[in-house]
């Protein structure tokens, strides 16, 4: 290697680095009068539906070019993109604490002037409002699809044995005994994936505690020790009705076990259905609402916004973004998504619901629904792991130490929020 060549090489390398640092950023918004709109959604499992939606949109629109991305590990990717200050135009995320935080950081545009706002079912618009950390004027998200969590059950197995859908907690427990008596595993769990602990938790807590419990705790009016005690007791009881070690297997394993008929019931959300069907396409699944109470009338279905769209406040082409939203909420587009994802529409209108929701349809129609409580839990608090810890803890003081830990950590992770809420309250007065 000669000296000149090397010197040149080094020079080229250093210039390349400095050039790249200038030219790298900034995406063009218009090419030949076509507006580019980028939509990032957090559901990679719906990639096929979104590819079809993207194709249909671009076929019918000459002035706007839509790109939809459905990356894996989407929340991490989205957050790293925000850290990079590289924003898409529209995001499709869930109605959960992430949305609350993004909204709180003023990242979304007020879209109350979009006429679609009035076509969304009020129950879901209320959920959106409840997600605002501090009360905020305006509309920042359009709920698109909801999911529901109850108990998935193997319909054929139930019919074969003549088991009945339980409506109260004690009937549920005796059903579990009955199933066990038939030599079948009543429940399956995939608790190695900690987040799955939240599914039965949410379904129980929504019927056993007030919907606004987190806000009330923040306001200092109650404690989790008081509000969550029954739920905590009942979730532990469930552990008796599974075989083997529920902490050894993950979500995928539990889905597979359920699909193969190794268990009669699975306490997981409707989002697991495609996964289960991929293992056993012939399985006949239905859902029933978690009978958490002794009085059927008190039971509430857990249902939350699984996908909603928000326009980023940095979006430069508001009208084009609105056009994309209008297209997404057209009847056929919604139905396409629902069919693909077995989801519940958030929009008013006549849609076909998937058959595995038959058992909970009356709850949906009557609006007897409450949001997933974990949508209000700060993600860094890792409530799922706290619950998993509690379920693993077989000592006599487990319940009390779990509840007091919940309260303590809640105060720690929500310290800033609680303080801001107090300041806000004082400002209102």
């Amino acid at each position, binding site marked *: *290697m*000669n*000296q000149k060549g*090397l*010197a040149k*090489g*080094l020079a080229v*390398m250093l210039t*390349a*680095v400095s050039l*790249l*640092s*200038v*030219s*790298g*950023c900034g995406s063009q918004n218009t090419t030949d009068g076509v507006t580019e709109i980028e939509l990032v959604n957090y559901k*990679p*499992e719906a990639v096929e539906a979104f590819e079809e939606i993207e194709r249909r949109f671009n076929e019918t629109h000459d002035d706007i070019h839509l790109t939809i*991305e459905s*990356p*894996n*590990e989407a929340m991490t*990717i989205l957050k*790293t*993109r925000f*850290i*990079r*200050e*590289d924003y898409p135009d529209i995001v499709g995320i869930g109605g959960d604490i992430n949305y609350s935080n993004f909204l709180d950081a003023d990242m979304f545009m007020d879209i109350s002037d979009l006429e679609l706002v009035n076509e969304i079912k009020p129950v879901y618009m209320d959920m959106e409002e409840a997600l605002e950390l501090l009360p905020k004027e305006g509309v920042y998200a359009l709920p698109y699809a909801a999911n529901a969590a109850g108990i998935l059950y193997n319909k054929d197995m139930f019919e074969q044995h003549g088991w009945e859908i339980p409506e109260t907690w004690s009937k549920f427990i005796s059903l579990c005994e009955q199933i066990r008596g038939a030599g079948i595993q009543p429940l399956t769990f995939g608790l190695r994936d900690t987040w799955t602990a939240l599914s039965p938790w949410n379904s129980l807590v929504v019927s056993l505690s007030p919907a606004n419990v987190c806000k009330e705790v923040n306001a200092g009016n109650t404690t989790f020790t008081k509000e969550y005690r029954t739920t905590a007791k009942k979730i532990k009881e469930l552990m008796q009705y599974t075989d083997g070690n529920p902490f050894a297997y*993950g*979500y*995928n394993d539990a*889905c*597979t076990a359920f699909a193969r008929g190794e268990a009669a019931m699975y306490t997981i959300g409707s989002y697991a259905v495609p*996964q289960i069907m*991929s*293992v056993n396409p012939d399985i006949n699944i239905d859902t029933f609402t978690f009978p958490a109470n002794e009085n059927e009338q008190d039971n509430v279905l857990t249902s939350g916004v699984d996908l909603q769209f928000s326009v980023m406040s940095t979006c430069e082409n508001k009208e084009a973004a609105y056009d994309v939203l209008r297209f997404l909420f057209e009847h056929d587009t919604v139905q396409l998504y629902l069919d693909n994802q077995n989801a519940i529409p958030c929009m008013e209108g006549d849609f076909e619901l998937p058959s595995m929701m038959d058992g909970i349809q009356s709850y949906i129609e009557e609006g007897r629904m409450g949001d997933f409580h974990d949508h209000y839990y700060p993600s860094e608090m890792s409530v799922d792991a706290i619950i998993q810890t509690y379920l693993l803890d077989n000592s006599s003081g487990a319940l009390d130490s779990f509840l007091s830990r919940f309260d303590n950590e809640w105060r720690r992770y929500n310290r800033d929020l609680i303080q801001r809420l107090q300041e806000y309250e004082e400002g209102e007065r």
Partner: protein
Amino acid sequence: MKKGVTNWPVTILLILGCVTIFFPLYMTVIIAFKQPSEMTNSVAGALAFPSHWSLSNFAEAIRVTDFWHSLGNSVFITCATIVLTLLLHSMTGYAIGRSMARKKKYKLLYFYIVSGMFVPFAILMMPLVKQTAQMGLDNMIGVIILYLVFYMPINVMLYTGYLKNIPMAMEEAAEMDGATTWKTYWTIIFPMMKPMHATVAILTALGTWNDVMTPLVIMSGDQNTLPMAQLNFQSQFGTNYNLAFASYLLALIPILIFYLVCQKQILNGIASGAVKG
């Protein structure tokens, strides 16, 4: 320790110990070839050969993980990193190594760079994500530059250490003949550091090829490296262990081939790094 007599007990123990190395690889291979229906819960079934040696899992894994694309990216990142590492780090190591004894500033510089070894990636990660994006480096080029920085401490240390074995007389003679320092370095010293180049190249290659974290947080868009494709694959198609293991095996094959071909150089390279570094 007499010459010529084979120590059979130790040989046998070592061969038995190899089971711990090859058993996981054996499992990977047979699971990759099996079909989901062949997966059983019994030990004998789990250890048995697949009923057919079908490549369908591999074809499917290549398709869903976009294997060739991620392989290309991994090869590009690793090769570019190695070439730039050898040029830049050896030069830096030389300049520092030859000046350290005489000049305090270079001694400080040496400690400044080597202290980078103690900086955990975790602390740099979050600011780097912001910084690389602002500089337009949230891509493979950015990842390569970062590797150049991350491996700088250890490589500079290795090169300066190795320089102690090369007598100053060589350069002094060349300089007497009127050659510039620049020229002396590239024509005389750089070729003489060949054994250390091998060591550096191997250590850097193993580190960059298998790294997940840097590309995961730095690269934006849908560019994948080989290990990253496995991470994404895992969350997406986790139920199908056969497909997953076929994909793992595919990801392992390039480095396994490389290792089989260059095994001697790799082992010697690391050994000489340890002795002379």
